[in-house]
């Protein structure tokens, strides 16, 4: 079999996963896209193991390890998503902006914290409560 076929399929699946991670808004859909990326890596590992045929069977052993790590990752990830959903009432990754720096789209980003000494703490506090509401 030509090695290009599994390699190209793996690259295409990985890029589909990249699109899903970047474009999705629901946290569980993001986790699904992460699973697609991990599966693309697994396919690459298996294809190169079959091609190289090393004595240790590194590719297939690493594939098994990746599958186990992915299972652990999805368990922890879902537990975190459920905890966030219970605390915030949403699993929308666009609305979890507590640790985000104020970007150009936010309304309190135009004036920096230096020009108004009294207000910034109050402003960031108001911003935080608004983001978490």
């Amino acid at each position, binding site marked *: 079999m030509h090695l290009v*076929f599994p390699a190209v*399929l793996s690259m295409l699946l990985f890029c*589909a996963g990249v699109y899903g991670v*970047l474009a999705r808004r629901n946290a569980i859909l993001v986790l699904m896209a992460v699973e697609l990326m991990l599966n693309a890596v697994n396919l690459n590992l298996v*294809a190169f193991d079959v091609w190289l045929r090393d004595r240790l069977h590194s590719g297939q052993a690493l594939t098994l390890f990746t599958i186990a790590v992915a299972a652990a990752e999805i368990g922890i990830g879902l537990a975190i*998503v*459920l905890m966030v959903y219970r*605390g915030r009432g949403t699993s929308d990754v666009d609305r979890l902006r507590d640790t985000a720096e104020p970007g150009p789209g936010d309304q309190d980003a135009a004036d920096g914290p230096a020009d108004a000494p009294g207000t910034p703490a109050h402003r960031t506090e108001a911003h935080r409560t608004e983001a978490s509401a």
Partner: protein
Amino acid sequence: MSPAAQSHGFLSPSGAEVAFVLVGLVTFGAAIVTVTTRQIVHAALWLVVALGGIAVEYLLLTAEFIAWVQVLIYVGSVVVLLLFGLLLTKAPIGRSPDADSGNRWAALLVAAASAAVLVWVVVDAFRATWIDLDGPAAGSAAVTGASLFRHWVLPFEALSVLLLAALVGAIALSRRQPPAAAAGSRAPDAAQEGGR
């Protein structure tokens, strides 16, 4: 190019190659639907098709044990976990208009650019490389088990510790908060989380 490689060609594909390409098209299509559909439960079900297609690709690459592990772990447990997650976060049934965020076109641009670069590099690098599928069995349960328990024992045991840690962590994360912490503000809650 070696004489063995000259006997192959794109114009005379073997049966395994034809099957690989067909299953690969189905897998890639299912992956695309998974990341683009607006019906969230349908995305999980199309993910089953994509993961099952990858299991068939493993079989075609003679990695039998990995294929069955893929079916057991991914199709059997990961997708079920995802469906339970959708259930517990009250995902909307039917079309949800806000499944995609506003930066969809930037994401599409990034994904298409990386796909073009990666496919070009991979095709250019492995244009004349062929996998010999007729050699000794590389993926049966006997061979995989022997190599796993002969050469990979220490990582295997470390992996069991990792799985135990993940299990304990998932239980600790999803445990219901005691009423005192739930009634208070979020600051003592965070302190308690760090202390666990």
